[in-house]
């Protein structure tokens, strides 16, 4: 099936990471349930909200890098990860 649908390793790694993040966050939620709180974002958010905002902005960060510069995407990835961590901690 993998060969038939032309799955590439990159995409598999990408989705594996997403699934891993979701699994870790689910387990974390079961171990220590979170409540809504207000950080530097203008709205009250749960941990899941902040993760979603982080992932969505990561997509936009990558696209912006592609659109306006020729800098390697590893830079975009680094920025995204740092931004995601900041969001999760203080957002």
């Amino acid at each position, binding site marked *: 099936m993998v060969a038939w649908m032309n799955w590439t390793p990159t995409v598999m790694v990408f989705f594996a990471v997403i699934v891993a993040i979701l699994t870790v966050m689910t387990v974390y939620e079961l171990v220590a349930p979170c409540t809504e709180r207000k950080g530097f974002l203008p709205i009250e958010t749960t941990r899941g909200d902040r993760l979603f905002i982080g992932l969505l902005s990561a997509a936009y960060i990558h696209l912006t890098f*592609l659109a306006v510069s020729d800098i390697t995407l590893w830079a975009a990835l680094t920025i995204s990860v740092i931004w995601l961590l900041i969001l999760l901690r203080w957002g």
Partner: protein
Amino acid sequence: MNKISDNRAWWLVLPVFLLVAFSALIPLMTVVNYSVQDIFGPGQAYYVGTEWFKEVLTDQRLRDSLIRQFAFSGAVLAIQIPLGIGVALMMPKSGVKGSLCLILVAIPLLIPWNVVGTIWQIFARGDIGLFGWAINQMGMDYNYTGDTLDAWLTVLLMDVWHWTPLVALLCYSGLRAIPEAFYQAAEIDRASKWAVFRYIQLPRLKSVLIIAVLLRFMDSFMIYIEPFVLTGGGPGSSTTFLSQTLTTMAIGQFDLGRAAAFSLIYFLIVLLISWLFFTAITHADKEK
């Protein structure tokens, strides 16, 4: 605090999850997969990384159609929301007249998209169409197949005709939900009509209006059939909106990788805007 919650019911969601995975998640993953490859045919796929994304993002044709799309959706909202509120305010409150109005207003909503396109294509023609002919007879030079502005106005007018009723119906139901006591209090205070609208009706319409804006934005952002039938995207590419550009790329040119990259960007835009609206709605509910 020591309540033990039983989460086993979540297993019942499993069939739905599997179905959604089969019909939505895996196809979406496939699109992601195609967006990083150049595919010529079965067994002839080449990995190209983010090249398609780069190409799509820097393509002037796509940028133009994205700007057109936002302009169109903006115009649709700017016209249809106030107009819909106005229509709803003017509709009779109850009785036979009210029912009759509801039916009349709802008729455009029942017509299929491609039929709406065909109706307007004939209606707006200068030679045999009533609308086009009448405008031309009034001395105005109107030709939606040749003039960019005319084409735009015709597509906009068609969308206003087709979808303003939805906004009007939503607002009408919102207005009917306001208790009579509010109006009586306003009458005692001798509030003007404008004050009643500004301080009673509009605030009470807030939640239906958010839904109306969301629905109208999404629909107009993904508009395809009506302009395709009416103008075919022309003259030139002046009314070629995003979905038509995408279809041309994916089906016309069979450029799967490019089209996949483009769909993902399209999807991200829709996702961001829906999320913003969703947050606005839930936030507004919380404040109550």
